């Protein structure tokens, strides 16, 4: 746990990697930009995404009922199988693009680009949640409890949204603030336990996830939340002043939460790259003992990291509660917490990466919704694809790492051989002399 969590293989403790990276100070911004887009890491990620999409499509094809019907008589008429398989394969990708980017079947232009806005809307909680996890990963902590922190943020923010009646801007601000506080509290618990008692934050956060879900279930059957004559499991709607305003008009669902996500990304970049606390956090994540020696209070840093991570998760909850659903329901948090983990891993825990990874997964989600409604493909394929993307990246990184290590070993062997032979020749010369 002393290294930041990523998908790269864990280095053995005694090895170092001499001279494999170019000296960062010799590059100008052109080189940096080229490296950003064309480095082996970007190629790995692109390859992994394409591979995962192809595998997902193949799974869909294999289990498509029409394709399965033709498999029964494959050897009599193989052309049937291939035509059905091809149809299913292309319908996967066409539904994905139509649901995520551009729907060419729609009559007007604004309806045709609605899918792109849907992708962004679904991406908002994933981006902010991914930022929360990226923050904790950078500090070497595994905050698996984002799911629970989102639920608490939803409870707090939803309560302020539906229980009070405040003027327009203030109500929204109060609800967002309450959501942040709710998430921060749920991050404080593992934080203080880790700082004071050394409790393993993975287990504490996983337990708090389940407690949060049960708490929400219990609260949603009370009068306060479901209102008089309401159904258990769904709360009253929040006040109109507490909802995020729509920023593209009523034809689209894109709400102000997107601006919040952008601001949050900038905030995290500033925090990690430019602030003192961010430096302490990165130091504690890279090598806690060295940081301690340098005078950084590692335990306090870890506690503050978990609190801040929870606060960001609470902010992520504001997107569904105040933006799209405008209320609370039992399934509100869905799988956002776990999807956000994959977003953070894909984005390599850098704010820029997390932002674009969130957009990608938001697009996959939006595409999945259309795949379900128009092609009958169960929306779970999106989760499978997300998991395969992460596993493919982990595998590629591992293969690259193992190749690099083999090269190092060979170079070391060459050096030792060279040193041996000069030694030997020196000895023989000495003996002759």
């Amino acid at each position: 746990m002393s290294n930041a969590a990523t998908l790269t293989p864990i280095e053995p403790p005694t090895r170092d990697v001499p001279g494999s990276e170019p000296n960062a100070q010799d590059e100008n911004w052109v080189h940096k930009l080229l490296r950003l887009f064309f480095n082996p890491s970007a190629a790995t990620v692109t390859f992994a995404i394409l591979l995962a999409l192809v595998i997902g499509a193949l799974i869909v094809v294999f289990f498509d009922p029409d394709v399965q019907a033709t498999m029964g008589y494959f050897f009599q008429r193989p052309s049937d199988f291939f035509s059905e398989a091809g149809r299913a394969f292309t319908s996967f990708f066409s539904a994905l693009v139509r649901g995520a980017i551009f729907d060419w079947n729609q009559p007007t232009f604004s309806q045709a680009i609605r899918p792109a806005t849907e992708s962004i809307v679904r991406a908002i909680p994933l981006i902010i949640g991914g930022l929360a996890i990226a923050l904790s990963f950078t500090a070497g902590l595994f905050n698996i409890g984002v799911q629970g922190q989102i639920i608490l943020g939803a409870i707090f923010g939803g309560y302020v949204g539906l229980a009070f009646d405040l003027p327009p801007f203030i109500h929204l601000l109060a609800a967002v603030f309450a959501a942040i506080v709710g998430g921060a509290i749920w991050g404080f618990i593992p934080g203080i336990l880790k700082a004071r008692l050394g409790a393993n934050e993975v287990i504490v956060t996983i337990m708090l996830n389940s407690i949060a879900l049960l708490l929400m279930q219990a609260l949603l059957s009370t009068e306060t939340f479901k209102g008089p004559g309401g159904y258990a499991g769904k709360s009253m709607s929040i006040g109109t002043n507490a909802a995020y305003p729509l920023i593209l008009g009523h034809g689209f669902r894109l709400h102000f939460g997107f601006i919040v996500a952008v601001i949050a990304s900038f905030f995290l970049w500033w925090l990690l790259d430019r602030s003192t606390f961010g430096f302490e956090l990165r130091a504690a994540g890279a090598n806690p003992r060295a940081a301690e020696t340098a005078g950084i209070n590692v335990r306090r840093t870890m506690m503050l990291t978990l609190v801040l991570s929870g606060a960001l998760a609470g902010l992520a909850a504001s997107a569904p509660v105040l933006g799209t659903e405008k209320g609370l329901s039992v399934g509100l948090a869905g799988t956002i917490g776990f999807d956000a983990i994959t977003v953070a891993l894909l984005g390599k825990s850098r704010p820029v990466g997390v932002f674009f990874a969130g957009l990608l997964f938001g697009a996959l989600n939006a595409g999945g919704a259309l795949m379900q409604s128009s092609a009958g493909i169960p929306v779970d394929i999106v989760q499978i694809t997300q998991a395969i993307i992460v596993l493919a990246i982990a595998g590629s990184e591992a293969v690259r790492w193992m190749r690099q290590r083999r090269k190092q070993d060979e170079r070391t062997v060459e050096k030792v051989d060279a040193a041996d032979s000069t030694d030997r020749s020196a000895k023989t010369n000495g003996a002759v002399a």
Partner: protein
Amino acid sequence: MSAQVETLSNPETDIQSDAKLAVQWRDPVVSALMVVLTLLLASMSKGQSNISFRGASTWFEGGIWTIPAAGTGWLMFGVALVCTGIIWYRSLGRRHVSGWLLVVVGVAFVITFLVWVVADRTSASLPVVSLLAGGLMFATPLVFGALSGVVNERSGVINIAIEGQLLLGAFAGVVFASMFNNPWVGLIGAPLAGMALGALLAWFAITFRTENIVVGVVLNMLAVGFTSFLFSTLLKNSPHLNQPMKLPVIRIPFLADIPIIGPVLFRQTILVYLMYAAVIVMQFLLFNSRWGLRLRASGEKPQAADTVGIKVNRIRWHSVLLGGALAGMGGAIFTIGQDLAFSKNMAAGNGFIALAAMILGRWNPTGALAAALLFGFATNLGAVMQSVGAPIPAEYVLMTPYIVTILAVAGFVGAVRPPAAEGVPYP
């Protein structure tokens, strides 16, 4: 010379006055808390409680006992108060406190709680035998999951994917059973499916050296997504592959007639008996066999194990596969153990409770069994409370396993020390 010794001030008493043994606060604080809660519940109990002992034995008919709720509550409070007093007296005197005193206080609290739940209800009764039997059944997947976790983590691989393995076991159990129209075939399919996910975990965690926790979380997502996808496609189009099948309940002839504990322990499906066997076998193998010693060495100090010639990564691979099989077997309970067809996300967080049971049980099979029984009982109690219509929402009772685990990990139940090299790939 003796006069010299006596005129010296005795250094021992001087030092002793400054250095006292620290008070062990765990037992006094926990028992005080439980006594206060018992007091609250006893004061809130009114009327009569019906406690049903139906099904307690075939030798006699266990009827419904009607007991005064308040009286029982106050009696239990008295017992708990006496024990708490003894605990406090001995703790403050820095003397050893027997663990059984805390157990007695705990039992008194639980009895008061149970009596309070059905207090003053003429139509509802507390079914003791089905409460305990159901608790054991709920605990069985937790025990299997915790055993899987123990075997994995003792060898050095952190397994967060127990949830996914349980789910795959449930899925494969019912599909295999439906395919061959025989629930016993499901017992073969379930461990195989768990082993498949275990193979993926081992490949990424051991061979690729990826961060174990990350791989576990992602594999959980994969398992949930894959089974849900298959449920919506394969099982929907071929419903004959998803028929509820039940493993027969096997009664052990004489033992099942022991009052109360007989039907609870010895009138269950084969999966529960397999669980007993698994706990005994694993406890013996881990701590009394060469294989177990090598496994534990791989998890504590793989460098030392390697020096002696133990193939660390091969042992880790084997242990992850074994753990996957155990967890898959546990997952079968959700479907073929309960006569249910597969439905989405059936494991419902049991994998994480199993992790908690493993930690609370200190990475021992028997400890994990005790913790899982506690958690299973709490879960079943929550379900019974929902059916009886209890005064407080059942969700708060369902939270108890999780809260207890947090307290355990925070050290309130003693130091919790995981295997030293867990999660660290070797070499």
